């Protein structure tokens, strides 16, 4: 009997001993970028500022949680006139809607180091359900999350008026991220 209790206690303890929760995002080792097509030509850009909370334990991926805010005015389109334009009313309208927010919902392990994160993405006052595929890679004591998903800019009214047609700037925008996090103390 004693042995069984001990074994049960050990079994209960073991996962806890292995559990590592990555929950401190390191912004300097993280990146949020995007790729879109301009007259058939892939053009990329990025956001300089974003912040987020993350809690991921590789032993309990289903319990993972993530919330990210991207400062839309920190956009880098590669050209100053582009940055200015995209911050304006027809695009992000950063005065009224300074940030984009992603909040995770269910996390589904797909096997190996691949996961599928369902979540809600809010930009410019509009919220859409998104499915974000992500991979997790341990790098030293840090965990690196990489992923790419595609949104349609029209779903968020990004690029209105003269930009609303997709002949010059395509509707599909690929969002890429690399989030590095370390376990909290």
């Amino acid at each position, binding site marked *: 009997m004693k042995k069984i209790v001990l074994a049960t206690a050990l079994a209960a303890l073991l996962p806890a001993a292995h559990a590592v929760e990555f929950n401190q995002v390191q912004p300097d080792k993280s990146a949020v970028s995007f790729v879109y097509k*301009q*007259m*058939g*030509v*892939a*053009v*990329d850009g990025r956001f300089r500022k974003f912040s987020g909370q993350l809690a991921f334990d590789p032993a309990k991926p289903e319990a993972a949680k993530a919330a990210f805010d991207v400062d839309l005015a920190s956009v880098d389109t*590669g*050209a100053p*006139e*582009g940055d*200015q*334009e995209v911050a304006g009313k027809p695009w992000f309208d950063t005065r009224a809607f300074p940030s984009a927010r992603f909040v995770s919902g269910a996390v589904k392990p797909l096997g190996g180091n691949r996961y599928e994160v369902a979540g809600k993405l809010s930009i410019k006052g509009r919220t859409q359900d998104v499915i974000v595929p992500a991979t997790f890679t341990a790098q030293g004591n840090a965990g690196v999350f990489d992923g790419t998903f595609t949104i349609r800019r029209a779903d968020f009214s990004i690029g209105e008026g*003269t*930009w609303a*047609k997709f*002949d*010059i*700037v395509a509707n599909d925008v690929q969002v890429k991220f690399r989030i590095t996090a370390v376990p909290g103390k």
Partner: protein
Amino acid sequence: MTTRYTATAKTLHWAMAILIFGLLALGFYMHDLPLSPEKLKLYSWHKWAGVCAFLLVLVRLAWRAAHRPPPLPATMPAHLQFAAHAGHFLLYALMLAIPLSGWLMSSAKGFQTVWFGVLPIPDLVGKDKELGDLLQSVHMVLNLVFAIAIAGHIGAALKHHFIDRDDILTRMLPRH
């Protein structure tokens, strides 16, 4: 020795002339436009036409190497003959250098050139803001020199026609 240009040489000359006037006008016009879908479209057209001009000048140089242009009139003084050759050399050099600088500038600014939206032209340089700004200045200065060289080219042709009264201008015309 023949004093005539081949029909191909004339066609290439005038095709280039039309293309270059269009490219110069479009380039100086679009540069100052506020950002709009129209501006992005014009930039793409300018880049596509620039690739055409570059390919045409290669064809032209190949044709010229195989078919020597007619000699300048023997009545022309040596220093003017030299100036004519130097002027033509400068025009060809700019016809090569300007599209190259535009292509590299595009790459450095992070906008790959995709010919007619179909054929991607490789980026020889990566995205690099400072290099992009530098190449933009290079592209602009070369075009200013080009505009001056073209003005000189036209002025010289008119001088040949109206002052020297030789056939330098007319021999480049069709049906001559």
